[in-house]
């Protein structure tokens, strides 16, 4: 699968009600480390069927960012059964993304 763009309109159905764990990437176009992370997330999305990878643009979706208490990006949040299961702030290599989704 590829990375799905999520907004407040589809947040509930794509993230909270997902039957698979969801890796949420909070990012912005002006954020260099977010742009570095993006191709790695694209790879994870393509390689892994057991997780859904979604992207939330914090400039367009400031309320979603606020709901998740995001105050620095890039910020990855793992959501399982509608609940936060793990969080990582800052640029990490792909290996760490893969171990992050296990956690």
């Amino acid at each position: 699968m590829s990375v799905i763009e999520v907004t407040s309109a589809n947040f509930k159905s794509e993230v909270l009600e997902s039957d698979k764990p969801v890796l949420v990437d909070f990012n912005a176009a002006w954020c260099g480390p977010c742009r570095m992370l993006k191709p790695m997330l694209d790879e994870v999305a393509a390689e892994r069927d057991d997780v859904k990878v979604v992207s939330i643009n914090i400039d367009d979706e400031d309320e979603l960012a606020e709901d998740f208490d995001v105050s620095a990006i890039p910020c990855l949040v793992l959501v399982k059964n509608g609940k936060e299961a793990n969080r990582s702030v800052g640029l990490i290599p792909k290996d760490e993304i893969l171990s992050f989704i296990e956690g």
Partner: protein
Amino acid sequence: MFDVIIVGAGPAGMTAAIYARRASKSVLVLEAKSYGGQIINTPDIENYPVEAHISGFDFATKLYEQAKGLGAEFKFEKAVGLRDENGVKTVVTTKNEYEAKTVILATGSENRKLGVEGEDALVGRGISYCATCDGAFFRKKTVAVVGGGNTALEDALYLADLAEKVYLIHRRDTFRGEDATVQKLAARENVEFVYNSTVTALHAEKRLNAIDVTNKDGSVRTIEVKGLFVAVGRIPENQNFASLVELDPAGYAVAGEDCRTKTPGVFVAGDNRTKNVRQLVTAAADGAVAATAAIAAIADF
């Protein structure tokens, strides 16, 4: 065995890779995170010769493509140790060991932390090390900046335009940073200077709510803030190589403009070296000098 192993794919390391590949040496670049180094955090570079404006991301990506295009091999593994056995260098990473005739350490620097309990858990939940990156989350909120150098002053000025109120906390009563910026801050109604003070505790529930600030005279003040921007400098990343490279008290690798260390065949390039100006152009210059010295050392190997 590689001719050259370069540790760190920042501007210094990738420039070294370009020089070594153009001399047809085999090159392995080891990088702990992602290529680019610190510069990927900045949206606009205005002082690199030739390009009047370029984003840090574009700068890093172009440099990476140039080094890769010339045949440098990149592996995303963190180097955790370095050995020298009869001239053969072994770089130990979190996953493997690699041998080389020469090694260039281009590991740059990391943000210095405050060292207050609970800090790590609050990164991204109120604590940040980059005002231009994360300031936007604190529009119309109250924030504090810690530090006394130019970065702290500029961060405070940047945040003063966004935030409701900015406290600038400094452990002395005069700033190391430029006086002109101090004057600009003094003219802002929403900036308050907190002198002779350090942050001694963080109060948080889900996210940061307040900080304790302790004055030199022993008095403690609790200040409600949603954001705390830490600008207390950067620290070099040399600890893993200290057995072969002399470090100064601040942790920088001791080497002159020739980038040579006390161990023949081991060079340092970029921000992790003792020097006065830590910029892209000086990092790139070190990369060229270190690679050229490494190329000469390979000939004698």
